[in-house]
């Protein structure tokens, strides 16, 4: 079994190396190498999942580095959580890469695109499989690196390279918390191996600080409240990248981290509370912003931020399995939404929803898949989104976090509203602007993955729903605590909220019944939402600008003061030299006089010394 695990990770790495060397020459064909690697990986991860389902665990370990009594062992660890993530990552990565054959067709650096996609998948798999916090951190940054390279894939575009820079730096800030957390963990626990750490019992306050610091890493990577600014800009990257990285896998890494370090988090209720609150704030805030966005990909970006908030909320309120289940389903329908958005953009060559209109008639498959994705996201009853979101709300309800429960419900309503706002604008009504006139359906290679994702979006929810006795949750939590009786009241409520949202959206955008200017442009709340709560401006004004100012001050200080002192010393010595120079008057008898004075002083001094005086 260990052999397969190693293979899952190594295959994409091999494809990366081959593409790195031969990528340019292979051009379009390079996609076959990386897709083959990922599909093989998918098959192996299914095998791993089956192996784990009948109770097997696996662990490979080798000492990566040892200093005195501190040794760091790397390796691969397989348990339920990993198995689930393996399947999700490999499947989504495979489908997205198939999709991008069509999407990226004709791009001259397609070799490099597939190389970095496969290496991204490899580091994501490594992250999921790592048994040691340092190895996880290495994979964590590896994932961040390739997201940086892929966002900035079209680096000729200034906005793309800016977005890449922003993404890397913001996640890096988050990672600082993670590093400090690791240092604290090392100092208190003496080791960074996960199984040893989880076996230890820490004082709540220590466990609390460590887990909150580690959670900072998750905030950065999963674009939670304070550090969410980079994800919407990351849409500058190609759509398949957004689908794979910024919907399904990388952003989920933060949630995975919290899930993986759950034993640590559980030891301090304060940390759990913190996670839940941050999750809720992010969910609600992102949902509100999504209402006003006109760029189709950015709407989906904010929706991802909001759904991630949901997952964090789930984990925070103690519904560990529900959070992971939502991650599982979200990966599929969000990837579906992104890819269908991609095929729309591919056809219309614009991302503005108001340039699109009435595409439903011409792009049948994309329209259907997008709607399915929308329904799943909105939590339309009996679809995957509905079950996973319901589980989280149930978790919040049962654990008594009533405030979080009601905000969650409100967010679900907003989610339904903003996604169907996009659906109605883009697919119904008459075509706006010249873009959407001559539009035809995307080629098969792009629509097949859409269909597969559509099927998954429909069915994935069933696994964890009460109908099948919450099989997913019991698998994850090893049986105990999953068989809670289905609470029809919460289920009914969340279903009703979803329908209400869709209906409101239909009223507003579908039928023009409600007048366009219900919310006038200059209304305060509207302005607040359009400017995304001014978070970007705040950061720029109170973080970026002062850093530059301090940097400039430090440089001038360095130039003026310290260099000044150094050059000053040189200047003084020169001055001193010039001063002394004056004595050489050239007046010969003057020298004789100096000698004479010297003589006299000498005589006087010697008299005193010899005591003659």
């Amino acid at each position, binding site marked *: 079994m260990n052999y397969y695990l190693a293979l899952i990770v190594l295959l994409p790495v091999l494809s990366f190396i081959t593409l790195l060397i031969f990528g340019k020459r292979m051009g379009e064909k390079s996609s076959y190498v990386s897709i083959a690697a990922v599909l093989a990986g998918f098959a192996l991860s299914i095998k791993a999942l089956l192996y784990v389902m009948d109770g097997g665990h696996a662990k490979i370990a080798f000492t990566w580095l040892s200093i005195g009594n501190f040794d760091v062992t790397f390796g691969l660890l397989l348990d339920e959580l990993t198995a689930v993530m393996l399947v999700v990552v490999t499947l989504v990565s495979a489908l997205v890469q198939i999709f991008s054959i069509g999407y990226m067709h004709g791009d001259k650096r397609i070799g490099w695109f597939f190389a970095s996609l496969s290496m991204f998948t490899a580091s994501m798999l490594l992250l999921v499989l790592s048994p040691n916090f340092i190895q996880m951190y290495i994979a964590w940054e590896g994932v961040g690196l390739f997201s940086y390279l892929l966002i900035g894939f079209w680096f000729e575009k200034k906005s793309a390279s800016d977005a890449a820079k922003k993404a890397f730096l913001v996640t890096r800030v988050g990672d600082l918390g993670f590093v400090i957390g690791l240092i604290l963990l090392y100092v208190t626990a003496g080791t960074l191996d996960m199984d040893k750490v989880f076996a230890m019992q820490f004082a709540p306050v220590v466990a609390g600080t460590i887990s909150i610091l580690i959670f900072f890493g998750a905030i950065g990577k999963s674009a939670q409240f304070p550090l969410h600014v980079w994800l919407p800009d990351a849409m500058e990257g190609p759509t398949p990248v957004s689908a794979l990285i910024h919907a399904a896998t990388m952003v989920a890494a933060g949630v995975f981290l919290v899930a993986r370090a759950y034993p640590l988090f559980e030891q301090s209720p304060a940390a759990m509370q913190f996670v839940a609150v941050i999750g809720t704030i992010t969910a609600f805030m992102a949902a509100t912003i999504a209402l006003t966005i006109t760029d189709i990909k950015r709407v989906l970006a904010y929706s991802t931020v909001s759904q991630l908030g949901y997952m964090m909320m789930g984990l925070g309120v103690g519904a560990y399995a529900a959070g992971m289940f939502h991650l599982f389903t979200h990966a599929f329908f969000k990837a579906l939404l992104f890819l269908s958005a991609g095929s729309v953009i591919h056809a219309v060559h614009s991302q503005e929803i108001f340039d699109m209109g009435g595409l439903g008639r011409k792009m049948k498959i994309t329209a259907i898949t997008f709607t399915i994705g929308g329904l799943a996201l909105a939590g339309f009853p009996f679809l995957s989104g509905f079950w996973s979101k319901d589980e989280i709300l149930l978790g919040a309800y049962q654990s008594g976090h009533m405030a979080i429960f009601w905000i969650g419900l409100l967010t679900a309503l907003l989610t339904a509203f903003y996604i169907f706002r996009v659906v109605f604008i883009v697919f119904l009504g008459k075509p706006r602007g010249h873009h959407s006139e001559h539009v035809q359906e995307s080629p098969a290679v792009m629509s097949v993955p859409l269909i597969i994702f559509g099927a998954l979006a429909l069915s994935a929810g069933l696994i964890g729903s009460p109908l099948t006795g919450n099989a997913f949750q019991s698998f994850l939590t090893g049986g105990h605590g999953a068989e809670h009786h289905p609470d029809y009241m919460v289920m009914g409520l969340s279903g009703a909220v979803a329908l209400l949202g869709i209906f409101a959206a239909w009223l507003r955008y579908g039928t023009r019944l409600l007048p366009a200017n219900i919310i006038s442009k200059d209304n305060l709340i509207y302005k607040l939402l359009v400017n995304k709560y001014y978070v970007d401006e705040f950061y720029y004004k109170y973080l970026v600008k002062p850093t530059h100012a301090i940097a400039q001050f430090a440089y001038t200080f360095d130039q003026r003061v310290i260099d000044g002192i150094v050059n000053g010393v040189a200047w003084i010595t020169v001055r001193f030299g010039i001063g002394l120079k004056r004595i050489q008057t050239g007046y010969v008898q003057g020298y004789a006089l100096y000698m004479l004075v010297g003589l*006299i002083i000498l005589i006087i001094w010697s008299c005193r010394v010899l005591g*003659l005086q």
Partner: protein
Amino acid sequence: MDVSISLVIFLALAAMAIISSLMVVVGRNLFNAAMFLGAYLLVIAGFYFLLSAELVGIMQVFVYVGGVVVVLLFGIMLTSQMINVRLVSALQQRVLTLVVVAALVGLLVSIFSKTSFYYISSAEAPRDSISLIGKLFMTDYVLPFEVISVLLLAALIGAVIIAREEGRQ
């Protein structure tokens, strides 16, 4: 009684020495200065006789008055115009030098007056110093005697080479 006579002679000689040396230092005319230098040297020779150092006195007359003064005269004639040579530098320079020299002389005199020299009573009869000096030259001071001859030779050649007119590259 004879003490007072030698004192009178001493004072006379001392006065003449001081006057002649002042004239050399202050004299406007270089030639006159040279003449006064010769007079000064003779007075010093007189002192030597007074101090019953006959050989030194004679040597003084021969070497200094005969040799050195004549050579200096040659120097004057070869190098510069005789009369109204600008002698002394600016007032401020002069005052400063006078002050310093006076300080030095005062200092020396005060030291002499303080130190009690160990007198040998003058009663000892002065033996003829010439034969003594001759013996000393050949016994204790033979090395310096040889060295001084080498030195004089070197000075002689050196002076000739330095002041040579033609033949220098």
